[in-house]
């Protein structure tokens, strides 16, 4: 009797996370809200000291255990070259779309919306959008996009998103970490509390890396009163600067 009771208690404790999940009307975990990362991954995914505009920070890479991106030798050299030229070579500097997963950990908020058929994510940075169909549809073929093609499904309390059709023109961070157009991602979004969400991404690209690798980070919900996402029309500011016009 006691043993059963203890087992029951353990089961209840283990499912504490499930009990804490708020759910949408169709019974799915509710991931909705305005979220933002609070780390320096946008500067560098690996352990890094401070540099111009970027605070020091720990790695968000959880696999491989040494926290280093497993580049093929040619790619490690290219990454070094990117790093040395990052002030002019970073595509974000030209106000190009940030790609995935970088869009998630830029220092700008984004809003997740959920319906039974779609997850719709609106990012403040450059008003990027991602529409994630939940209906089992296939990726488009023979085309690529800056933000890729995302299709999702639920695994328990986790939203799993498979991203394909990414072009090779984005970087993963300001430090020059890059990929090819063969990159595929599996993102996992899991609500870990009322105002936190764990974001994990497995990154695979046989042209650039020796093996798949994984990043993981918490995302934090904005709870300020009347918080909303605004607009960051990046290239307009670039054009104004070129014209020498006042903002």
């Amino acid at each position, binding site marked *: 009797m006691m043993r059963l009771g203890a087992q029951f208690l353990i089961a209840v404790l283990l499912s504490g996370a499930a009990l804490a999940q708020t759910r949408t009307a169709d019974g799915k975990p509710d991931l909705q809200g305005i979220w933002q990362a609070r780390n320096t991954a946008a500067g560098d995914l690996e352990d890094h000291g401070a540099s111009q505009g970027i605070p020091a920070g720990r790695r968000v890479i959880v696999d491989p255990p040494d926290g280093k991106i497993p580049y093929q030798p040619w790619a490690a050299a290219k990454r070094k070259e990117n790093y040395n030229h990052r002030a002019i070579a970073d595509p974000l500097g030209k106000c190009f779309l940030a790609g995935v997963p970088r869009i998630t950990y830029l220092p700008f908020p984004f809003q997740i919306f959920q319906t039974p058929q779609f997850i719709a994510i609106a990012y403040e940075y450059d008003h990027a959008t991602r529409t994630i169909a939940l209906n089992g549809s296939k990726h*488009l073929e*023979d*085309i690529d996009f800056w933000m890729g093609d995302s299709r999702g499904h639920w695994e328990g309390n986790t939203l799993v998103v498979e991203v394909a059709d990414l072009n090779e023109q984005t970087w993963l961070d300001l430090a020059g970490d890059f990929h090819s157009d063969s990159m595929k991602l599996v993102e996992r979004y899991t609500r870990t509390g009322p105002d936190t969400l764990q974001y994990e991404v497995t990154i695979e690209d046989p042209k650039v890396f020796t093996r798949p690798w994984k990043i993981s980070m918490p995302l934090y919900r904005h709870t300020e009163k009347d918080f909303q996402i605004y607009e960051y029309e990046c290239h307009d500011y670039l054009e104004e600067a070129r014209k020498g016009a006042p903002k």
Partner: protein
Amino acid sequence: MSKRTSILLLAAFALWRGAPAWAHHSFAAEYDANKPITLKGTVVKMDWVNPHSWLHIAVKDKDGKTVEWNCETAPPNILYRGGWRKTSLKEGDEVTVEGFQAKDNSATMSAQNVTTADGKRMFAGSAESPGASKNGDK
């Protein structure tokens, strides 16, 4: 099918695809509808970009010199829905591109149709180009 019917169908096609005048008079501002041109060359590359995609072809001019021409097409979303794929054309493919020359005398043109060596002819024109209504006159 009469010419009139095919024009009617193509106009309906263009509208149905939701492809009205895009990129701001760029056709008439950049290209001359009175200067049609047909080029034979080989594919260098194709930039699948917005608001218009660009097909770069290497063309031998009358002196035997190779000139790279930039041929503007519809944007990727329109091309894709029209059956184009990134693999539709490969580097080195022989193509014939029909279109209209640029006004600024650069090696630039607005592509209307692209015909590959196997005889397949694909419509490529941006919606505001004259070909958007002419296509179908085979």
